[in-house]
């Protein structure tokens, strides 16, 4: 078994006096300060309300949406898989019989309480029909009352995905 000798730092006079560490630390912060002051456009932060984030990836979990079939009808079959998988129990589904012959069941109402939701994405994984997705890229959800944070089926259907795959192919 080989022995790895770990070098110990901080015992030389130069390191113990701290002067060089102090000087190099202050040089670094001064360099940051002067470069940023000379050209503020190089600062990597984004000025939020005016410039929106441009680095939202396909895996980002934003606000939910319900996908549609090719004939623009709802894809959800009200199987309750998402509501069962949900760890924060924020999905409320009421099922009804589907009469147009496309499928047997559809949700009468489909509500998500966004204040309860933890945006874990389990509902998306649980869905057997690819009917619920979180690819809207909406990260800022604003409302004046608690009730407004409970979004209904119409709102979920009106959300659009931002990554091009509009309708579900499943």
């Amino acid at each position: 078994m080989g022995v790895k000798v770990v070098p110990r730092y901080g015992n030389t006079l130069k390191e113990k006096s701290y002067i060089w560490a102090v000087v190099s630390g202050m040089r670094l912060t001064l360099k940051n300060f002067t470069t940023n002051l000379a050209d503020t456009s190089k600062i990597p932060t984004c000025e939020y309300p005016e410039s929106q984030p441009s680095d939202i990836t396909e895996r980002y979990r934003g606000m939910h949406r319900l996908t549609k079939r090719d004939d623009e009808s709802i894809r959800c079959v009200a199987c309750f898989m998402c509501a069962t998988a949900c760890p924060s129990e924020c999905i409320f589904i009421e099922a009804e019989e589907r009469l147009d012959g496309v499928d047997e069941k559809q949700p009468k109402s489909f509500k998500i309480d966004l204040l309860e939701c933890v945006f874990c994405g389990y509902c998306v994984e649980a869905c057997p029909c690819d009917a619920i997705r979180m690819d809207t890229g909406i990260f800022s959800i604003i409302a004046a009352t608690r009730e407004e944070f409970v979004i209904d089926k119409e709102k979920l259907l009106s959300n659009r995905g931002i990554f091009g795959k509009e309708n579900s192919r499943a």
Partner: protein
Amino acid sequence: MTHIFMILLPIILTVLFSLVTIPLLVWMERRVAALIQNRLGPNRCNIKGIRLGGIVQPIADMMKLIFKEEFYPKHIKQKFYYILAPGIVFGAAFLSFMVIPYADDVTLNGFTYHIQALPIELGILWFVAIAGLGVYGIILAGWSSHNKYSILGALRASSQVISYEIAMGLAIVSFLITYDTISLNTMVQQQGELLFGFIPAWGIIMQPLAGLIFIVTAFAETNRAPFDAPEGESEIVAGYHTEYSAMKFALFFMGEYMAMSASSAIIVTLLFGGYQIPFLNTEVMHHHINLIFIGLMIIVPLLSLGFIKWMQKNNSSDESRRRETKYGTILITIFVIVFDTFLFYLLTSGISYDLGSVSIMIMQILTFAFKVMMMNFVFVWVRWTFPRFRYDQIQHLGWKILIPLALLNIFITATFVVLAGV
């Protein structure tokens, strides 16, 4: 009229340097911190779209603190001391400004004016006495808050001040040996001389070790990072001001910034030549007043041009910023034209000795203000570079390193003075 104004001038300057710099320093602290950390910092506060880089922010902060509820915790028995404590911190910080010379003595109409709010000769002793007094407010706050965190913070502050005041006093002793006086104005006058004919004889060059010790102890005296263990929020919430809110907290806050500004002023006075412009002491300036005026006529437009260029590059991200830049450019251009015309008029009409004295005084006050702001920048810069010292490290540095070094420095200085017979 001139007589009264010249007597009131140093008092006005003291108020300006201590009170008016507070909002500036708060703004500077936040913006410099942001730029050091690669972000922009608070720049959204504006009056009708005019932001000036967010300099209105401290006014908004102050408004918030003024209109907060005056809240007194129920468990506080000694309400008088509880209210008195922030006042002591604030007052002590304010008083330590009184002895700083802002410019050289001015002789007008045969009367010599000291540009010093309290024209006493024992300047440095006054500073040591008053600066140490500020910690009484902190102790009182910690005790009267009747709270374990507060008392721990106050104890930390007091022990820190005790251990660093010794090193500070010893560093000052080496300066006293070097300058052979305790009057701050005489010290600054001596720093206007040249060493070997080409180096300004500033304190930091005459006494580099004592200068370093003085700067470190001044940081510890003001309870600023990296010596802000009394407010160590990781262990003792907010230290001595845990129970304070609204304007009482604001007094502590402002007192801290004022103490920082006062420390900067005394550091500049002792170490960096005070109001002296390098290579130009008062006599030299009187001799070459015409040349200095011509130099100003060239330097001020160049600086303004640089600032306008910077503004056009970095302050034109949207419509209102571009408008602000346009107004700023126009205002600065008008100022430069008026300034140059005025100086040209003075030059052509001939500069009398009194006029020279007044203009030299103004230049020295501005130099002093610039140096103090630079030193304040160093305070801010250090705060956002170094992490907080652990409590035992503070004591170790104070007792085992700084005090022996300061004693050694006194020994070396005294030996040199005796042997060289200076």
